[in-house]
């Protein structure tokens, strides 16, 4: 009925304008306050006339001591301000690893290998097939060579050669892109959760590129898919302490040693979703990098829910009853992820949300506490705080859940969904593939704010907020260069295998 729709439409339009007005008022409160004050002063000055102004000036009794003291005071305050300001940490550039086409694993090949290897366990094969159908992955994701064999040969040698292949290729690309000499690297952080040989992967990098002997190197293992942002946090802290330094972060996950050979259902999931990938990131605090850096790090918030037992056990590596080691994912993973996200948002909200949203949230909180607990909690609109979102491509369910919780549109989560489709779940490096997607689509402008959210075992939720430093031209190389024109693709709910 058009007549009934009209009032609704006009009332929603009215509501929209009211909301816009409110936001504008609160966000620019201080500047709006300044205008009347300046007007009043101007009127006063005009009213007083030139002689009265001169009299007021003479009555202030300026003498030398007074003048010098006030000058020193001003200089002192400004020095304290500049010294205590944290150093700006820049993300100069980053490179994502593009696996060779010969490592491609179509669904049919994956299922066939599964069937041939798990010949006597058809139920497990059926289960894997159902996971793959609903996973949101595409036909171009890649597994390392060792997993292509029938049967797979996940030896330590193969794991090392996969690590060398993914890490060195990404780092070579990064050096070429940024004109960085290996000897200029001051800090090296490598994070890889499930493969931790001796000597460490960071030692492997130092050996290959002949890095300096006084390099500060760190190897983070066991920290799950959110380790990428933990490395960024560590780099940021180190760059506050060491002036004029470069930091290289390598985020990767080595798939070879973690192929689960058993048939416990909850542990077969990672086999279906995890794929090969890595990213190498260059961060620095050189003043001279402020022209060429792509992003500035604004905030980094880490939330750990390990104190709660349910969260701690929800992603748990263990042996199954036949002695095969695998990662057990509990059924309430989504609920726990939602809680972790809520905790993270509570901390990051005040740092990034505009004043209007914070006021509304405060009002609704007061209202719920004092007046009526049944009021719906106000979910702040994060779309006002960020232009781009990079949600860890852990699986289709994660992205769906976050899209619902944060009330994001399809375009906001497009980067995450397309990364999941093209590269699969590459663990800690997936955030960088998503960022690369946004850049390749030409959507990244100067001043845009990006929110990277990563989840990991523990259970952890880490967020990083970046501000784009310069408008980024569509890159000619990179992992998306040959296929960006085909994206975005429509990903059906269930792909019939």
């Amino acid at each position: 009925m058009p007549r009934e729709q009209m009032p609704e439409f006009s009332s929603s339009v009215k509501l929209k304008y009211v909301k816009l007005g409110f936001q504008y008022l609160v966000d620019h409160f201080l500047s709006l306050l300044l205008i009347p004050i300046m007007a009043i002063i101007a009127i006063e000055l005009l009213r007083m006339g030139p002689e009265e102004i001169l009299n007021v000036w003479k009555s202030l009794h300026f003498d030398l001591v007074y003048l010098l003291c006030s000058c020193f005071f001003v200089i002192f305050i400004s020095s304290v301000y500049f010294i205590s300001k944290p150093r700006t940490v820049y993300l100069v550039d980053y490179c994502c690893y593009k696996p060779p086409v010969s490592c491609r694993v179509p669904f049919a090949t994956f299922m066939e290998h599964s069937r041939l290897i798990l010949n006597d366990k058809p139920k497990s094969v059926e289960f894997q097939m159902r996971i793959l159908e609903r996973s949101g992955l595409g036909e171009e994701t890649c597994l390392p060579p060792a997993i292509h064999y029938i049967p797979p040969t996940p030896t330590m040698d193969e794991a090392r050669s996969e690590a060398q292949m993914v890490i060195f290729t990404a780092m070579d690309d990064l050096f070429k892109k940024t004109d960085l000499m290996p000897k200029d690297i001051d800090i090296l952080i490598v994070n890889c959760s499930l493969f931790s040989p001796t000597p460490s992967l960071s030692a492997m990098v130092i050996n290959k590129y002949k890095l300096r002997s006084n390099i500060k190197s760190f190897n983070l293992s066991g920290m799950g898919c959110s380790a990428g942002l933990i490395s960024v946090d560590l780099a940021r802290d180190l760059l506050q302490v060491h002036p004029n330094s470069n930091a290289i972060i390598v985020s990767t996950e080595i798939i070879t040693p973690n192929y689960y050979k058993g048939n416990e259902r909850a542990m077969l999931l990672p086999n279906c979703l995890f794929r090969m990938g890595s990213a190498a990131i260059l961060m620095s605090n050189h003043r001279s990098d402020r022209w060429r850096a792509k992003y500035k790090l604004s905030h980094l918030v880490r939330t750990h829910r390990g104190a709660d037992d349910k969260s701690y056990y929800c992603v748990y590596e263990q042996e199954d009853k036949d002695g095969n080691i695998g990662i057990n994912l509990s059924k309430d993973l989504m609920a726990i992820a939602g809680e972790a996200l809520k905790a993270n948002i509570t901390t990051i909200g005040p740092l990034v949300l505009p004043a209007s949203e914070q006021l509304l949230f405060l009002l609704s909180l007061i209202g719920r506490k004092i007046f009526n607990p049944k009021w719906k909690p106000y979910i702040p609109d994060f779309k006002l705080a960020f232009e781009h979102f990079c949600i860890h491509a852990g699986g289709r369910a994660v992205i769906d859940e976050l899209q619902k919780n944060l009330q994001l549109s399809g375009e906001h989560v497009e980067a995450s969904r397309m990364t999941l489709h093209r590269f699969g779940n590459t663990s800690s490096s997936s955030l960088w593939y998503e960022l690369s997607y946004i850049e390749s689509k030409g959507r990244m402008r100067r001043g845009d704010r990006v929110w990277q959210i990563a989840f990991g075992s523990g259970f952890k939720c880490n967020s990083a907020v970046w501000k784009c430093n310069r408008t980024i031209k569509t890159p000619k190389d990179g992992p998306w260069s040959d296929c960006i024109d085909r994206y975005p693709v429509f990903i059906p709910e269930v792909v019939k295998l």
Partner: protein
Amino acid sequence: MLLKEKTIMEDRVRLICKRTVVSTKPVEQGRLYRFSVFDHVMEPNHIRLVYYYRTSKTREPGEITKKLRESLAYTLNCYPIVTGRLVKETDGTEENRWKVKSNDAGVRMVEARATGTVEEWRRSVNREEELKLVHWEDMYHLPYYWSTFYVQVTEFESGGLAIGLSCTHLLADPVCAMMFIRTWADLTLTRNMMTPPLFHSLPPRRFTSHKLSNNQLLSHYIRSCSLTAPPSNVTEDRMVTTTLLFPDPMVQAGENEQGISPFEILSGLLCVCVSRAKGKRNELTDMSLCLDVRKLLRLDQSYFGNCMVYHKVHYSKPVTTKDRLLLLSYVVKEIHNVTKGLDYDTVMDLVEWLSSNNNNPISNGSDLVCINLENMANSRPMMFEEDLMLSHVSCYVEGPVAGGGQAIVLPSQLSEGPMSRVVMVTLPQREMVKVLEDELLQSFSPVLLMEYTKLLNQ
């Protein structure tokens, strides 16, 4: 019991790994390809090819295998049928027959290493050992997970390479299997696919006014397709294979009639020798010729699918002469009549009969089957890399279509002359012994390239 003369050689071929190679681009999912009537009729058989390459350069072990694996992935972009899987589905008019669903599953590839050089291997190997260079797996109990093609790349530690290709006869005949390797080689060498395959159904008859008349080709198929039980004289005698190189069969035969090809002469020669070996005094053994009819049906050589027919040779006159050369000349003439007489209408009659009447695969009983592959040589050499020279090609066809003995005539890779031919002869051991000692055969001065190994207690 004395131990066999066959030297117990430890396994010279060492398997490294088995994996699946997929195309580099994803295929259009869900497409179903149908087989032609020629394909259906060849279903229970399979083909194995071995290509030997010698090299002058030393290489890192595994380097050439890796390169071949990558170029194979690019080659497979043009072969969605090869990377698909067999399904039995009814769609519309077709009853429950095999089809290929292109699901992007890929082909199996096996990597192996062998000791010694290619030349040493070829000098000392027999059929069983040679087949170690070609991996083959019979159909898995779930056909949807069974790869129809298998590629094996064997690197010889002291130099050289062997590429083995095996496939089910349902998808390909030896001609298009060899074309597959040619396309792969071209792509590896020049990054250019010179002869991409053509996939289409057999073209319908051009002039529909022709009435279906009985012809010899058709009667052979009618008889053979109803052969369900293996014939009684397929002996328990072990089948052995030898490879012979005939440097110049035309000159030896003294044939100066126009149009006779080395294939016809060699088939005739083997027919005569095998007849004597079988102990037939005044008759010749049953013989079928396997001929490629792509040209007849106006199809390009890169048509991918079965396009070879089996035609039985009929002897119009009874055998009376004792002069073996005269006998040879007579047999060659009869063979020539068959090849000359095969025309478009004959083949189309067969196609039509097969479409409407037949559901059974063909079996050649205990005939001697001669397969003509002599035109598979090309002026452009088939190389994967600049310094890899093709030194030899072996071909095996196994299954009921192989009859009671087989002679596959291949072009010669050595520079003996354009008329030289390599023949791979498979016969029961007792007959093979007699054939090799036959003086008519010896008068053609064949060079023994591959021996069979005798078992002493036979």
